[in-house]
């Protein structure tokens, strides 16, 4: 059952990555160019999933959408990890008032809904992929800081760190040699789950018109377009949503599966 979770996750995530890679070299049709003569075609041949309100092949846009999704995921999770993990390690290793400060600030950011942060950024800087990535990334920092801090506290309390400290290893040396490698697995799990959250958030922002704008295809803005034709071409609104669900499910399963695979102590009692 647990292994099945990991394998299903890997397959779904793999499918999204393959779609994104294929879109780099090939798409059946141009994913941007408007074709006036063939608007709103149903699924069939040669347009596998039909065409959208601009006459653009939906399958091609889905493939390119996978790319946008992964890029936003990588950058926003990257922002969160690069800032959150060192902060969490610092809080865990130094402790005291610094720990209090980092955790309280991260509580404030955590309580601030990501969507509202994105709305605020979009109204100040204009809606773009960048503002969406920054908003999602900043909102995800607390999750990474907490995971890194909890892991650090555990490692720092262990005997091998005590021994290293006794042997005169500096705090920095302990962080690099012992804490880093030991918390890497839990950070990896958080990255996978964080990726799922980022995909959902990016899709919502693009759908609301606060993320990547047309004509760049994203699954979110494809749904935004499709909604205008719900009574004429309802199937159009199915494909991008399905793609989002597959990607989010994949990363969630991968994260859950990895957690159980890496740490048998976390396995649920059957």
């Amino acid at each position, binding site marked *: 059952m647990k292994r099945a979770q990991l394998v299903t996750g890997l397959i779904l995530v793999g499918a999204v990555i393959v779609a994104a890679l294929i879109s780099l070299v090939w798409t059946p049709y141009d994913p941007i160019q408007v074709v006036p003569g063939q608007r709103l075609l149903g699924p069939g041949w040669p347009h596998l999933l039909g065409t959208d309100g601009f006459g653009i092949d939906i399958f091609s846009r889905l493939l390119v959408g996978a790319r946008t999704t992964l890029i936003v995921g990588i950058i926003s999770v990257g922002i969160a990890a690069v800032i959150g993990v060192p902060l969490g390690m610092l809080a865990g290793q130094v402790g005291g008032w610094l720990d209090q400060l980092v955790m*309280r*600030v991260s*509580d*404030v*950011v955590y*309580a*601030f*809904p*990501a*969507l*509202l*942060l994105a*709305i*605020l*950024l*979009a*109204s*100040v*800087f204009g*809606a773009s992929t960048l503002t969406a990535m920054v908003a999602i990334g900043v909102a995800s920092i607390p999750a990474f800081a907490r995971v890194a801090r909890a892991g650090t506290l555990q490692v720092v309390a262990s005997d091998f760190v005590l021994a290293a400290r006794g042997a005169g290893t500096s705090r920095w040396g302990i962080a690099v040699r012992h804490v880093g490698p030991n918390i890497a697995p839990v950070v990896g799990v958080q990255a996978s789950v964080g990726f*799922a959250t980022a995909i*959902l958030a990016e*899709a*919502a922002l693009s*759908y*609301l*018109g*606060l993320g990547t704008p047309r004509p760049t295809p994203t699954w979110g803005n494809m*749904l935004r377009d*499709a*909604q205008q034709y*719900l*009574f004429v071409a*309802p199937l159009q*609104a*199915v494909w*991008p*949503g399905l793609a*989002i*669900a*597959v990607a*989010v*499910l994949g990363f*969630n*399963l991968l994260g859950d599966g990895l957690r159980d695979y890496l740490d048998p102590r976390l396995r*649920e*009692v*059957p």
Partner: protein
Amino acid sequence: MGLSLRLLRRFGVFVASLLGASLLIFLVTKALPGDVAQVLLGTDATPEAVAALRSQLGLDQPLAVQYFSWLGGLLTGDFGHSHLSGDPVLSLLAPRIAVTLWLVGIGLIGSILLAIPAGMIAALKRRSWAGTLVSVGAQIGIAIPVFWGGILAVVVFAVWLRWLPANGYVPLLTNPGQWALHLILPGLTLAGVQAAVLTRYVRSAFLEVLNEDYYRTARSVGWTPMRALLRHGLRNAAISLVTVVGLQLSSVLVGAIVVETVFSLPGLGSLLLDAVAQRDLFVVQGTVMFLVLAVLTISALVDFSYLLIDPRQRTSHGGAR
């Protein structure tokens, strides 16, 4: 730590979070590229007009002074004014709050009503197909974006079956029947998606109960699993669920904002998005502050009630973070 000290500490966290959030909102707004007054008036404004607006908005004051005067305004209920219409932000919010509140209420209550039985089945029947089905369903539900759920609901119930309206809103007092009809799809969409998340928490809360002595005792005197769970489990699981629901509140509110867009409901979400589209910065600032204030206040109240209802929190050693 005694109870009153813990309550006091939680109140301190609440005040600090409010200050932190307001500072964040203020600073992001201040990061606007270029001069706010210039942006508001457009590029063809005369320098005199820009200067006049700057001093009217207090933009010629130091940042700290601007922040504290904004904060002081918030304390007296002044959330700023729209620069387009000149209306106070609160008067723009007032007629729309009801819509969002209805949605949040239906979403929250509906998700609890769906998630508790689902989570109980997932925990009790975890070794049979029924429990697995619920767990898999919840896992899939979590992956469904709330707006796609709404769009699918429109396709099925408004486009194909034609049972319910696809969008729009009728106030309760105008026509209660129409009001209910227009809220069914958005409310259930929100409740369904939230229920998926909540089900996992309910499941693990009940799994814990299954390992407790009181549950084993109840079973050993001949109670059925269902009766033991309902009589003892629900009350014990409720304590941990109160905190989860408190945390959920923020995501229900965000979900409501998104769902309002799907169904064209005139709530706070559509006010915010319209304001973003028109670059009406002060309306965005005031509305975001209002929503954050609401989220923080309610999560503080949930924590207070948690401290008060759980007797274990009153001892000197229980439940510290």
